[in-house]
């Protein structure tokens, strides 16, 4: 199973211009809302048409602007899970599956549906209408309706964002279980970096319709490469940076020079540091990247403490997270103090774009 997508489409605010290939894997499309993620899925599904480009699913060309091919969605064999699940509201869960299998014999239809009901554990509510299901049940029903058609590609558009936060974890586990058992290409669209990190093996980061980064999820979280990808993967501190030498950069906005673990590229544009990669130098033994920061503000959140740091008045502050159950040394009251902290060289991210 594979997907090859080259899509160019003019939208009202920007031009969507994405090119990627996916094999038998879970590929995440990560981007802020309105960046073109959903439009990308719609083009692949055949609900919207690109202005130009080519889309190939399992070697079958479903769209090609040069050869004038544009198969209707009905012929593309794609399972598309919509954000609101889009179950047919007048039909029960079972009827929702029956209608998509209407070309099969009655016996075959029943066999497939019963099998799916067992597989996804829909017994309790297969004779209910969607309005009487919880968000998680609706999602399972919608997945069942997709899976009975045995699609060659599955696309999920923000499948968890319609759920209450306390439900999300269990539904995500459930979804992950379904996805792992399904042997095909899976496109997972989300604006939530944590979801993409947990669910996808590779990810494509989208910013205003353009590629901001594309690679394995772990690698992109460790080394985003571009400013947009850094921000979308949750990096809190970014600033323009300049190369000093092979292992050293200057970050004027922060008023510090940083040593790096890897070679500094010639076309360096920004430096980035994750908020939880700034450490207190409690023992005073840090050898490099050790600075005296003023603590401007200290804020307690449910499971972490956020500090705002800066070198001195004329520089921009950095954000630091400390996990909430561990802050034995410095009590909450202590602000405006100056403390020694360090940033390990391997956690200094170098961005070229």
């Amino acid at each position: 199973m594979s997907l090859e997508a080259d899509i160019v489409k003019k939208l009202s605010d920007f031009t969507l211009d994405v090119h990627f290939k996916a094999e038998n894997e879970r590929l995440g499309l990560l981007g802020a809302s309105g960046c073109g993620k959903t439009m990308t899925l719609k083009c692949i599904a055949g609900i919207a048409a690109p202005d130009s480009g080519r889309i190939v699913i399992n070697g079958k060309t479903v769209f090609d602007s040069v050869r004038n091919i544009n198969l209707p969605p009905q012929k593309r064999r794609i399972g598309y899970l919509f954000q609101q699940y889009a179950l047919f509201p007048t039909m029960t869960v079972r009827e929702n599956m029956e209608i998509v299998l209407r070309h099969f014999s009655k016996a075959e239809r029943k066999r497939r549906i019963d099998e799916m009901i067992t597989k996804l554990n829909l017994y309790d509510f297969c004779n209910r209408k969607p309005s009487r299901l919880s968000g998680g049940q609706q999602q399972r029903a919608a997945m069942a309706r997709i899976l009975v058609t045995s699609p060659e590609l599955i696309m999920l558009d923000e499948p968890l964002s319609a759920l209450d936060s306390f439900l999300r974890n269990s539904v995500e586990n459930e979804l992950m279980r379904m996805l792992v058992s399904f042997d095909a290409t899976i496109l997972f669209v989300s604006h939530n970096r944590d979801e993409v990190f947990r669910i996808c093996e590779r990810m494509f980061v989208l910013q205003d319709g353009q590629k901001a980064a594309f690679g394995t999820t772990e690698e992109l979280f460790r080394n985003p490469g571009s400013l947009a990808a850094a921000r979308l993967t949750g990096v809190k501190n970014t600033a323009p940076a300049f190369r000093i030498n092979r292992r050293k950069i200057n970050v004027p906005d922060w008023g510090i020079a940083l040593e790096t673990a890897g070679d500094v590229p010639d076309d360096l544009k920004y430096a980035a540091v994750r908020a939880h990669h700034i450490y207190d130098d409690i023992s005073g033994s840090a050898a490099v990247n050790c600075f005296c920061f003023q603590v401007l503000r200290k804020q307690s959140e449910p499971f972490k403490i956020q500090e705002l740091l800066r070198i001195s008045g004329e520089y921009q502050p950095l954000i630091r997270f400390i996990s909430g159950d561990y802050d034995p040394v410095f009590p909450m009251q202590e602000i405006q103090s100056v403390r020694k902290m360090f940033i390990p060289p391997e956690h200094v991210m170098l961005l070229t774009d």
Partner: protein
Amino acid sequence: MTDWSPLFISLKTSLCATVIAFFLGIVAARLVAGMNGKSKAAVDCILTLPLVLPPTVVGFFLLLIFGWNSPVGQLLRKVGIRIIFSWEAAVIAAAVVAFPLIYRTIRASLEQIEPSILDAARTLGLSEWTIFWRVMLPICLPGCAAGAVLGFARALGEFGATLMIAGNIPGKTQTIPVAIWSAAGGNEMNIALIWVLIIVSISFFVLFPLNIFGKSRL
């Protein structure tokens, strides 16, 4: 008062007109809901005109179309059908004025369907035909019912166009509204009053469930 024929003529005419306008309304609603831009606005405008034009204008156009000397009229005459001043003419007049209400109500409810439901249906392989009859219409059932009821009530009240092309033939084309006009004109105010009360109560009891039903949908 012995002649109840206007009541039965009215009910029969309105019912037939509603059925005809209902099916035409569904087809028109589906076509217009699928259109875009200026052509949609133009077509919608034309289909809505019978709602706002004076009934005499509708009657005039129907006379032009079905009259003795029109191409349609002559064609029908060749196969032995006479529309003008027949009961069928009353049905046509009522259907034409009921149509815009039915069409607009159904179109509005078709356009309220969550677009992703239709997109999902397409990606699941359902044909446009199946989507319309099995997915869209069931969702729009309350809208269709409302349209049919409004259309029936409007057809029941049709007067001007009916009088122009169906005339005032007691026992044949004389509907309740025409009977009221006829009785009032002949200074039989008692008869007119009885018919007025009858048509007010029929209309009320037709529209009343619509409101009850409309509320329970929320």
